[in-house]
């Protein structure tokens, strides 16, 4: 196969290189580099004000980039106007045109934009019958066919959300940018729509950049999660990896509900091998962890609620102070040597009465050790 046979790879991913956004003295996004692969669903996750929406708006072209470069489909787009970036955005408020019918709303991106229609031909505006066909097609795919003549005011929240999606899909953009699209839906509808969005992503095989502050959305939907805080990227990786090996205390605390338990500890090496002093008790430390942390180091010990179990042979002396029952599981809030630890327990296990002394066992292989000064992961 000669080089001529190889087609240039179609890249419709999004790349950010050292992107910074400053408003006067305030740095909203600080030196962010991130690659979103073609067809990937990347979730930008972070608390409000962390800069994740600003990143999305810079990709869309609604905000100028102060420093750095944004590429879409391998093409630098810093100076490309929003309409020519081949992206569609779903806004948190949906931003539908209230004076237009559903059909006109969905048709809107087709009116002004030129798009490739026939292969080998120059992009052009669609003709009215072509537009109607596309609108009908997209509306059918999200179940809006019956509602095409209504105005947004006559729709439910979930229906409006689907109109916003249909409007984003109609121009078949290379990348979809979604700014907390589920946050205005009630809890039940949110779960359902979450699934539909994942299915939509699989069907379209398009690049999705999805902004949310909801870690459950991030965990369930993402191919990869990018965690942001204070305008900086904290960690990027597949959901399970970010959950299992958080790179710092912020990520450890932000991902997981209830969050990871943290308490101070010290690493020691004795006759019986390495150990960790935590909550006044010494627990053996696996070599894999110990070899990365010199003996005598003070650390922040992180342990997820599911890695603590109530066992008569457990290492820690604890007292149950509160029990939260969630149906399928319960959360025991325990007091251990003045610290508060949350234990996750399947509700099939025998309940533990409040105020009784119990012993907790730590799954030491799943411990996380962080630097108390920088918060960075040690092991």
């Amino acid at each position: 196969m000669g080089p001529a046979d190889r087609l240039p790879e179609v890249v419709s991913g999004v790349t950010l290189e050292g992107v910074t956004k400053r408003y006067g003295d305030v740095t909203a996004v600080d030196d962010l580099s991130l690659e979103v692969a073609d067809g990937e669903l990347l979730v930008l996750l972070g608390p409000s004000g962390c800069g994740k929406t600003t990143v999305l708006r810079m990709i869309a072209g609604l905000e100028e980039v102060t420093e750095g470069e944004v590429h879409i489909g391998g093409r630098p787009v810093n100076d490309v106007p929003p309409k020519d970036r081949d992206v569609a955005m779903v806004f948190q408020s949906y931003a539908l045109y209230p004076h237009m019918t559903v059909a006109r709303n969905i048709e809107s991106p087709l009116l002004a934009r030129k798009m490739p229609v026939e292969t080998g031909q120059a992009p052009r505006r669609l003709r009215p019958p072509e537009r109607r066909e596309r609108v009908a097609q997209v509306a059918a795919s999200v179940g809006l066919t019956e509602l095409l003549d209504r105005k947004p005011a006559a729709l439910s929240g979930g229906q409006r959300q689907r109109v916003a999606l249909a409007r984003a899909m109609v121009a078949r953009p290379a990348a979809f940018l979604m700014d907390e699209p589920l946050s205005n839906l009630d809890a039940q509808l949110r779960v359902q729509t979450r699934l539909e969005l994942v299915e939509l992503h699989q069907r379209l095989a398009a690049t999705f950049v999805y902004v949310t502050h909801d870690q459950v959305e991030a965990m369930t939907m993402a191919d990869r999660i990018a965690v942001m805080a204070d305008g900086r990227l904290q960690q990027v990786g597949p959901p399970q990896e970010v959950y299992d090996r958080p790179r710092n205390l912020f990520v450890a605390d932000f991902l997981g509900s209830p969050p990871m338990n943290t308490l101070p500890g010290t690493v020691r090496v004795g006759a019986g091998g390495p150990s960790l002093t935590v909550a006044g008790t010494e627990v053996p430390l696996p070599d894999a962890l110990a070899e990365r942390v010199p003996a005598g180091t003070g650390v922040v010990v992180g342990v997820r609620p599911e890695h603590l179990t109530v066992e008569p042979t457990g290492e820690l002396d604890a007292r149950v102070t509160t029990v939260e029952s969630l149906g399928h599981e319960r959360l025991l809030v325990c007091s251990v040597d003045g610290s508060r630890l949350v234990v996750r327990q399947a509700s099939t296990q025998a309940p533990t009465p409040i105020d009784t002394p119990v012993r907790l066992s730590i799954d030491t292989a799943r411990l996380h050790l962080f630097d108390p000064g920088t918060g960075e992961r040690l092991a």
Partner: protein
Amino acid sequence: MTRRRREALLGYALLVPSAAVFATFFFIPLVRLVTTGLHQQNRTGTAERAVGWSRFGEVLTSHDFLDGVRISATYVLYTVPVGVVLGVLLAVAADRRLRGMAVFRAIFSSTVATSAAVASVVFLVLLNPQIGYFSSIDAFSLSDPDTALRGVALSSVWQNLGLTFVIVLAALQAVPDEVREAATLDGYGPVRRLFRVTLPLISPALAFLAVVLVIFALQAFAQVDILTDGGPVGATETLVFKIFNSQQPIDQGTGAIMAIGLFGITLVVSLVQFVLLDRRVHHGR
């Protein structure tokens, strides 16, 4: 007394204050107008005799009344469309986040605080044939019967501009940023965005302005009185001005009927506007 009755009495009692205000300032004057129209006074106002309803027909079809209607209608056409368009243009220009924009907004809205008399005096000077800044613009000359009404309209447009600007700007600022951004992403340029998204969204405010400006124009008096005193040769005698000029006791009946005529016209025009605009206007969400 039954409970129902007591509640009914209380209800009426609560209506008394507003009924009293309405009666004093609306119903009684209206009835007075009608009775004045039904009587003819003598030259000194010392005696009057009933002349009956036939005079209503005579006055309302008289050349004088119809001429007043024509001039007032022309005045509406001169002031309302231009006023709304200019207000929208100024407000669109001022609806940006730019340094120092507050100063421009204050300047643009300042005519709200200007009375018709002040505006008229300003334009009397500006249009003065000897010293006026606009004296060379013949299209607004106050001394030519063909253009005098335009000169008067100019001062009205200027004076109403502040109000139009404030209302349109407030409406523009209520348009969600995200909707404008969605339009930007959809590829709408500034002009298309204005006509296809922004203006439809602020149409309730524009409808309100249209109604208010028409009523202002139909009631304009101070401008005419100060700038032209109805002249030259009656070319700017709007209906209100003619009514005002019917102060002599002998003319009062005619003036009263004209006033009722104006009231009727204003009422009908406003109702028609509300109905028409309500059908075409998009209200909120």
